[in-house]
């Protein structure tokens, strides 16, 4: 009988009623984070069926997806002045729902309003060993802490609200072993893009991935979050990293962590979560990043990736490939380097934290964004915005000619006014380059914050290693 993986330990700890051939497990959820877009229908169902929220103390809410990234002075005329009417209604509905059902909402004016997967860790609600869900597929982000974070639809949001449980079948497990020292100008975003390029957008389907290895141990929590965030783009259910001293250091002193002797007990429990040495995974993938270059996508899914100095592959027999390069207006056997850029977007739950903003500031300091480029920098939360301003990063951004915005999902998915026009090409630190993702007809190139910053200055896709 072999030992257990990190995932198996967390899974087994949350089974209320075991899985059978005929029935899925009843599976307990420790933390439910909510935002305004995937919750209205769930609350309506609760209302219609007369159900209450079972554990409002285990629910956190914020507003991020359709919020404007300019200041919102109030929820009335102030909001209407800066928002399209439908998103404004959705925002008001969230406030109403949270009030009615007694849920802690981090709304406008709150230091912890921001992107769902930024605020959970920020306030210390995301902790090792927890099961964490949200009506958003990038819930995998929380796995950076050794939690099991996964995305759910609006019906399941209702299930969790009513019972704090979900019906789940246990997924398989995959180990991704990452070794090698990252070179200058190469970052966590490049690691996960390279991995998705290697295993494909369905390479992880049906599995929970554990990221392991010396490279992972050397990353800070924000870098680990970047990697876990894009796990879903490989089709996997969740992505996890075993907690260690780095994890504990990050969580120490944050608002929602256990206090006093509970803190010491928690540390002991958390450090015991790591996969046992004799644990067995259903699949294993190795990735050495010693020679990893900055990565950029060339196509219309995150698996269509190329090292920045190399040419787009030639897969002429593949209809999906042809459709993608046609949409992106790029050519096989041509490099992405030097492609004209219209917009640069730094933000999203993938890369909008202090590590990312500091990297961008480091490159923009004393330089100018090209005249032909519009650059938006969108912090992941109000408190990140505050911290960046304390460090003077905003002054660097503005002096360079970039726009420094309010927190939110912004141009990652173009639900409010931050969106691409038809044909515009955006170098984006977000996580999806699907057709029209950032605006109908918009073309997205996914990249790291450093690649985005270097490209903003050059006005074309550029290699950050040249400017560091």
């Amino acid at each position, binding site marked *: 009988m072999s030992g257990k993986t990190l995932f198996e330990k967390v899974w087994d*700890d949350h089974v*209320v*009623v075991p899985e059978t*051939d*005929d*029935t*899925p497990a*009843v599976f307990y959820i420790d933390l439910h984070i909510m935002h305004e877009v*995937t919750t*209205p*229908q769930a609350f*309506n*169902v609760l209302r219609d*069926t007369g*159900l209450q929220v*079972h554990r409002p103390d*285990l629910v956190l809410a914020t507003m991020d997806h*359709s919020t404007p990234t300019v200041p919102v002075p109030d929820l009335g005329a102030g909001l209407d002045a800066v928002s*399209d009417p*439908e998103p404004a*209604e*959705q925002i008001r*509905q969230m406030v109403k729902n949270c009030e009615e059902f007694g849920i802690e909402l981090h709304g406008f004016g709150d230091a912890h309003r921001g992107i769902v997967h930024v605020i959970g860790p920020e306030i210390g609600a995301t*902790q090792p060993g*927890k099961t964490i869900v949200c*009506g*958003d*597929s990038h819930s995998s982000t929380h796995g950076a802490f050794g939690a099991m974070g996964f*995305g*759910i*639809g*609006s*019906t*399941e949001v209702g*299930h969790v609200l*009513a*019972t704090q*449980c979900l019906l789940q*079948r246990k997924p398989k497990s995959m180990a991704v072993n990452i070794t090698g020292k990252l070179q200058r100008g190469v970052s966590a975003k490049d690691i996960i893009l390279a991995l998705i390029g290697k295993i494909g*957008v*369905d390479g992880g*389907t*049906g599995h929970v991935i554990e990221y392991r290895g010396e490279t992972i141990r050397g990353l800070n929590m924000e870098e680990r979050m970047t990697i876990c965030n894009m796990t*879903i783009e490989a*089709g996997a259910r969740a992505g996890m990293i075993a907690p260690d001293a780095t994890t504990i250091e990050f969580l120490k002193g944050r608002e929602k962590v256990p206090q006093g002797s509970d803190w010491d007990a*928690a540390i002991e*429990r958390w450090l015991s979560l790591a996969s046992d040495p004799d644990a067995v995974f259903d699949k294993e993938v190795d990735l050495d990043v010693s020679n990893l270059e900055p990565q950029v996508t060339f196509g219309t*899914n995150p698996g269509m990736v190329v090292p920045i100095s190399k040419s787009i592959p030639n897969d002429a027999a593949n*209809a*999906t490939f042809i*459709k993608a390069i046609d949409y992106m207006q790029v050519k096989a056997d041509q490099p992405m380097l030097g492609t004209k850029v219209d917009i640069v977007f730094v933000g999203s739950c993938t890369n909008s934290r202090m590590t990312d903003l500091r990297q961008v500031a480091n490159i923009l300091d004393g330089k100018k964004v090209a005249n032909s480029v519009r650059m938006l920098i969108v912090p992941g939360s109000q408190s990140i915005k505050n911290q960046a301003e304390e460090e003077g990063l905003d002054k660097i951004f503005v002096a360079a000619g970039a726009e420094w915005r309010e927190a939110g999902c912004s141009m990652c*998915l173009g*639900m409010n006014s931050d969106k691409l026009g038809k044909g515009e090409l955006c170098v984006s630190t977000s996580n*999806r380059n*699907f*057709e*029209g*993702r950032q605006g*109908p*007809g918009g073309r997205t190139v996914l990249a790291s914050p450093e690649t985005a910053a270097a490209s903003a200055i050059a006005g074309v896709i550029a290699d950050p290693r040249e400017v560091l």
Partner: protein
Amino acid sequence: MDKITQFTSATTVLAIDDVDTDQIIPARFLTAITRSNMSNALFADWRFDAQGNEIADFPLNQEGAKDRKILVAGRNFGCGSSREHAPWALHDFGIRAVISSEIADIFSNNSLKNGLIPIIVDVATHKWLLDNPGAEITVDVEASEIRLPQDKDNKVKPVSFPIDAFARHCLLEGIDQTGYLMQQRDKIADFEANRSWQP
């Protein structure tokens, strides 16, 4: 919830791989605060041009497509965002089954809760379906199989598909899973009282 046991329909074929949920329903349609009819949002940027006119050769715009309940799609259908609005839009349009050789996890789970059946078939069957748009297929949830027409002697060819036993049971009996979970309340309370640490 309606009971679903079996149905027969001609297929619409969308022979594109890796169709993500942003294509199925673009983000600008996610601002709804009710479960309103979303059929106009379905594949909005592939069905309609910038002026709102139907794009003639898109499969779902073709003659009779609105009456067809079965969509045959390329591999890895439904990848990307967890938006349940994707199966809602498909269902509102009239689709009751999606057939492919690979269907993304979250999309599958969401579909089964909304009377939309994700059907995974082997590569050979998938190819036959892609090559034969408009074929009359029977989806039999009870038998967990689809039945394809055959050229010779009018026999049908059954092809099994995997379906979670519980999901199948809920479809056949019209069971709402919230109700099922609510029946577990005592066990949930026990778990909460006796677990070794509190979140």
